């Protein structure tokens, strides 16, 4: 029997003082003030849905990173670091940096010069209406559901950490997001994401600084972790030779080909939630620099996410346990490690800032989901399929109403999850079904001019169905994981990696076979959409140190050095 989450009310982790409450309230006042200030600058479709396409590289880059830096991400991966050790860093380094650089240098020019409003919009231009419809409907549906799941998770965290009523958290956060996105559109969402970026670093960076001080430095921390857990908890690659040599139960093939080559590429290059921020850049150089700036900062996010998890292993007096055990025993779960570390070092004021950083992370993630949903609904579903003759003003109004409706659907989903907790697992699994095949479709569309509309559509459909099939197979028979992940020692995370890899390959094979059997588009039709038929716009005659390729090289070099240091 499923226990409704609302019935589980553990003891709160921290108590806020008056100054902490003032800091939290000031944050809400500031985001609403930004929304009201920007309300006069969201009157046209370009303004409301694309922030006027006038964002600088820094604003677009930090917003791009922030849209992914939600509080669930922070707390979840800090918990994973406690559970699996430094291996969790792969999701920040090889599972992000190559994909972000690939987006900047290879894919961004196509998104940008096609002047599309969305990723489904690009699919329409390249493969036709059916591919766009599949992609847009699945994305819109999943985005609001994910927003609801995140909203519920936030409310639950606030209940556990602060003792706040779950309804209060849901309604205050959702109404605030609805107000500032409805008023200011994407520009308002982006501004608040940049604000959130600074708050997260200001609120979380003290934990690793003080934690390393308490542990006696990195060398001593490694010794303590080796004593309390295992030496493999502080090595990135040396334990990935086989499934049994590391705490995650995965091997290097899953990490390199599943995570880095497919899941990460799919997420960072085709998930419209993050790509939308880059499309708002003011020119092609800014559009290319934005993901590179995001990648530069992404490399250092493990400082405030992974390191606190590792420090928790060494300095926390209690042992943390899985969520299911925590719910049954009243002990703290892995996911509590970040709030526990916050409470350990942060007194009045600093605690409020840390909590504000978590709330800001939740709200900006919700705003990102809602603004992406609004754009895809208006431009890729409503306009082509329902009303293609509206004025620009009509579509802006539709966007505002869709924002409110999207938030309300998210709230409804949050309450649904509250009653049936298992829905959360299903929704998160559903989201993963679309990412890998979508990447296969988009990348073939950009790089291979022979790919046809029927090929792209059927490849996307078959890849998605194969992903659902593998997930259902393992759900019905858990021992089937040995076939999906190619090892009897594989654990749950390995399933995600290999499932993505196989569904990507299914998508690519079906697309290639069907394309070769169907009539290709002419070169003229594909100009501006495919490599080899498109003059990629130049960033201009600028000094080498201002060129995106130069900074991508710098980021790639630091990425390699970091992996070698923590090998």
């Amino acid at each position, binding site marked *: 029997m499923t226990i409704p989450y609302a019935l589980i009310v553990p003891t709160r982790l921290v108590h806020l003082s008056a100054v902490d409450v003032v*800091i939290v309230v000031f944050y809400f006042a500031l985001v609403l003030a930004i929304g009201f200030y920007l309300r006069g600058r969201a009157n046209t479709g370009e303004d409301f849905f694309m922030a006027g396409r006038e964002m600088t590289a820094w604003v677009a880059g930090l917003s791009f990173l922030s849209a992914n830096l939600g509080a669930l991400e922070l707390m979840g991966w800090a918990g994973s670091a406690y559970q699996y050790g430094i291996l969790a860093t792969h999701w920040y380094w090889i599972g992000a940096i190559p994909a972000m650089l690939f987006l900047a240098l290879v894919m961004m020019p196509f998104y940008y010069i096609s002047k599309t409003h969305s990723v489904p919009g690009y699919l329409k231009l390249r493969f036709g209406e059916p591919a766009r419809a599949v992609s847009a409907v699945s994305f819109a549906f999943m985005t609001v559901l994910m927003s609801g799941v995140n909203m519920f998770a936030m409310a639950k965290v606030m209940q556990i950490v602060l003792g706040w009523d779950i309804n209060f958290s849901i309604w205050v956060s959702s109404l605030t997001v609805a107000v500032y996105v409805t008023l200011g559109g994407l520009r308002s969402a982006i501004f608040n994401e940049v604000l959130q970026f600074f708050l997260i670093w200001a609120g979380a960076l003290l934990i690793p600084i*003080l934690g390393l001080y308490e542990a006696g430095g990195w060398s001593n921390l490694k010794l303590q972790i080796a004593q309390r857990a295992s030496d493999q908890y502080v090595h990135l690659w040396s334990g990935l030779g086989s499934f049994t040599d590391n705490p995650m139960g995965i091997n290097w093939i899953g990490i390199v080909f599943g995570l880095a080559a497919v899941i990460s590429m799919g997420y960072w290059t085709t998930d419209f939630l993050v790509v939308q921020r880059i499309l708002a850049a003011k020119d092609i150089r800014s559009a290319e620099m934005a993901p590179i700036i995001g990648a530069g900062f992404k490399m250092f996010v493990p400082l405030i996410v992974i390191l606190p998890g590792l420090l928790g292993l060494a300095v926390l007096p209690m042992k943390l346990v899985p969520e299911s055990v925590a719910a049954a025993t009243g002990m703290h779960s892995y996911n509590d490690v970040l709030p526990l570390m916050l409470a350990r070092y942060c*007194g*009045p004021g*600093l605690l409020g800032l840390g909590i504000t950083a978590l709330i800001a992370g939740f709200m900006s993630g919700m705003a990102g989901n809602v603004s992406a949903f609004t754009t895809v609904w208006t431009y890729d579903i409503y306009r082509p399929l329902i009303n293609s003759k509206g004025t620009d003003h009509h579509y802006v109004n539709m966007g505002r109403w869709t924002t409110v409706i999207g938030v309300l659907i998210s709230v409804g989903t949050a309450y649904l999850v509250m009653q049936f907790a298992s829905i959360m697992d299903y929704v998160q699994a559903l989201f993963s079904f679309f990412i890998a095949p979508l990447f296969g479709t988009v990348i073939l569309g950009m790089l291979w001019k022979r790919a046809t509309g029927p090929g792209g559509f059927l490849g996307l459909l078959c890849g998605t169905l194969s992903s659902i099939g593998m997930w259902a197979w393992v759900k019905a028979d858990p021992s089937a994981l040995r076939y999906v992940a190619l090892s009897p020692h594989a654990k749950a995370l390995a399933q995600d990696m290999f499932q993505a890899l196989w569904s990507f390959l299914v998508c690519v094979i079906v697309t290639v076979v069907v394309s070769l059997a169907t009539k290709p588009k002419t070169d003229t039709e594909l100009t501006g959409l495919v490599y080899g038929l498109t003059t990629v716009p130049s960033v201009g005659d600028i000094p080498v140190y201002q060129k995106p390729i130069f900074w991508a090289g710098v980021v790639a070099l630091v990425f390699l050095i970091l992996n070698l240091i923590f090998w």
Partner: protein
Amino acid sequence: MVSIWFFIGISLLVNGLLILGAGVYEIWHPPAEQVVLYSLHASVWWGALMTVIGAAYCYYFKPGRKKA
């Protein structure tokens, strides 16, 4: 249009002042339950750092200021 960096500056400045104030207050009125490494007075120097950065952002990106 007011720069986004000005809003960032406001946020860092106000939060920095509040944290610095709370840290200074704690020096004169130490709490009964102290956090780990309380003796380092992290609130004071972290709040001061945020205040300085926030003030610099506010000054440099204040509305109407012409950049050199």
